[in-house]
């Protein structure tokens, strides 16, 4: 047979037939082009017949002949088929004979000796008790907390270092990160802020109208926006866009051993990768918040026009309710959010495991941790504000 014949699959099924001569003797007659496609279905049929035959009576006195004399071509799947049948015979303690196999398949068949290696005993997964699982979960939590604390320490020391050595900060990376996290976020922050402004005013106006207090909606909405909504909208959008981006970028660098290369070159990855991004977060978060405040208040003004409140009235009411300290308080909070969001993104990126899936996990963890931290910081800030009046 020429090789070209072997190469073109011949579709003349069945490639294998089960022949039982008597209770103790059977034969598998294999022929034609035995390959991974032609074996589909037949393999299961033959093995099922073999298993039910072996189960009847004493299997040790049974003998099976695998007749491969009519095979025109046998690929790796054909050899696996043969091995599967041989192993089933061996397991049952029955006899197995291979006849008529072309000599050219012998070397390949020999590669798999002993075939029992191909049939490992499935390992039983050790069951973890509740106590062990709880202990391990606690340990993970502690490890994570320790990682966060030590990262915060490193980050602070490197931020102080960068203030003392401003020339050595990677300003190129800082600019790139600031443009990507700040400038590129303007459209989405604008859109979301506009809509939130409209929704907030509408919702408030519906309730307030019943008390004839629609004129108070403007000041109320404006105060809420500058103190709470502006910083929160910005921070959450930053978490979704930039924190995930930082985690994915640094995560990919970790997977590709680029972070290892920095460490072995004597450079601090925090100073090199994290500081520029955190500085960018510190810069863009308050700016984006201010922009978000302006857009939201403007959209609120437009909404109140529907309720017959002119711009001037809204403006005067707002001036009476919102002081400069309210705006500053919002911006200070936004700055903290900027630090938290960019630092969490970088931390999760640096904690990336190996493989492509790990980068995805890091990006997800970055967004989740950032949002948790935003809420935490917001809560602490609200408490301090309440106590100090700022």
């Amino acid at each position: 047979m020429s090789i070209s014949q072997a190469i073109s699959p011949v579709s003349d099924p069945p490639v294998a037939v089960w022949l039982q001569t008597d209770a103790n003797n059977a034969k598998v007659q294999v022929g034609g082009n035995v390959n991974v496609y032609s074996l589909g279905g037949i393999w299961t049929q033959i093995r099922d017949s073999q298993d039910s035959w072996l189960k009847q009576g004493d299997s040790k006195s049974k003998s099976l002949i695998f007749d491969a004399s009519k095979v025109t071509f046998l690929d790796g799947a054909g050899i696996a088929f043969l091995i599967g049948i041989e192993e089933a015979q061996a397991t049952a303690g029955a006899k197995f004979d291979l006849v008529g196999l072309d000599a050219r398949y012998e070397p390949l068949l020999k590669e798999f000796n002993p075939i029992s290696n191909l049939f490992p005993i499935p390992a039983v997964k050790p069951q973890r008790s509740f106590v062990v699982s709880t202990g391990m979960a606690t340990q993970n939590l502690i490890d994570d907390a320790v990682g966060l604390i030590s990262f915060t320490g490193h980050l602070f020391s490197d931020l102080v270092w960068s203030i003392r050595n401003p020339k050595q900060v990677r300003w190129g990376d800082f600019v790139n990160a600031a443009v990507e996290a700040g400038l590129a976020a303007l459209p989405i922050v604008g859109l979301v802020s506009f809509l939130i402004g409209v929704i907030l005013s509408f919702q408030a106006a519906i309730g307030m109208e019943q008390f004839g207090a629609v004129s108070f909606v403007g000041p109320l909405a404006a105060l809420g926006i500058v103190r709470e909504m502006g910083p929160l909208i910005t921070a959450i959008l930053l978490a979704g866009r930039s924190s995930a981006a930082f985690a994915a970028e640094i995560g990919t660098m970790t997977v590709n051993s680029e972070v290892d290369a920095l460490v072995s070159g004597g450079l601090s990855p925090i100073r090199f990768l994290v500081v520029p991004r955190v500085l960018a977060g510190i810069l863009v978060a308050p700016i984006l918040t201010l922009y978000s405040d302006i857009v939201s208040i403007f959209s609120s003004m437009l909404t109140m026009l529907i309720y017959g409140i002119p711009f001037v009235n809204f403006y005067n009411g707002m001036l009476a309710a919102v002081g400069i300290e309210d705006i500053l308080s919002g911006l200070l909070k936004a700055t903290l959010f900027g630090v938290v969001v960019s630092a969490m993104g970088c931390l999760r990126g640096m904690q990336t495991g190996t493989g492509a899936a790990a980068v995805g996990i890091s990006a997800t963890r970055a967004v989740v941790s950032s949002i948790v931290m935003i809420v935490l910081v917001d809560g602490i800030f609200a408490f301090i504000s309440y106590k100090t009046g700022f």
Partner: protein
Amino acid sequence: MNAPNTPNTLSTSSNPTCAIDVQNLTVGYGSNILMQNLNFSVNNGEIFVILGGSGCGKSSLLKNLFGLYQPLAGDVLIEGQNITAARGAERQKIMRSFGVMYQEGALFGSMNLLDNVTLFMQEYTQLTETQMNLLARCKLDLVGLLPFESYMPSEISGGMQKRAAIARAMALDPKILFLDEPSAGLDPITSADLDSTIQDLSKNLGITFVIVSHELASIYAIADKVIMLDKDAKGIIAEGDPKVLRDTSKDPRVHQFFNRIISKDLA
């Protein structure tokens, strides 16, 4: 040996001994042409090695051969079927007839080795899970990775990842295997074992191998035929049996490559 850019006589697509036929192929990216007007053919069951210095476009040529990239000009015929002109389902059908091992292994990171090998079987065959697992274990055994079937790609070394990638490429017992630097980064024993497996598969199952390689020892051991590419000539500068080329080639570039002569010594 062919002079650069001299087209061979075109082999017809109906030639039954021809596994791959390359006709007037131009490889490159946009205006950056790496190889021009290549003509060669790979016979059935042959171990065909593509040689050349780093950056001359060997891997790019390989990706053009198996249809991952569209060539700038020319045609590649795989068993008489023009993969360059084929589109959609027709192209996928041609692609199913060969296996590819990428330079970096390109294993799926979220699956263990056994699942990496069975993935394509799950899609294209009607075997049961037990049968697929047995078949996949055979493939892993051939590359010496049987004990590592449940390992994730990230838990094994680079050389092992390469071998696992070869096992995956062989999953459906394709007629043609494209291997991009299979033995680079392997220890000499594993590399020799791999060479012997490649020879067995070629000799006994008639599998055609198209291999990009730098490993001279491995090339001498297994290659039936080599082509040597050159960056400046943008084409094939030598073709034939590697040992013959090593001993008889008058071309200084070929002589330098096969005899590992340092560039400054040549000048």
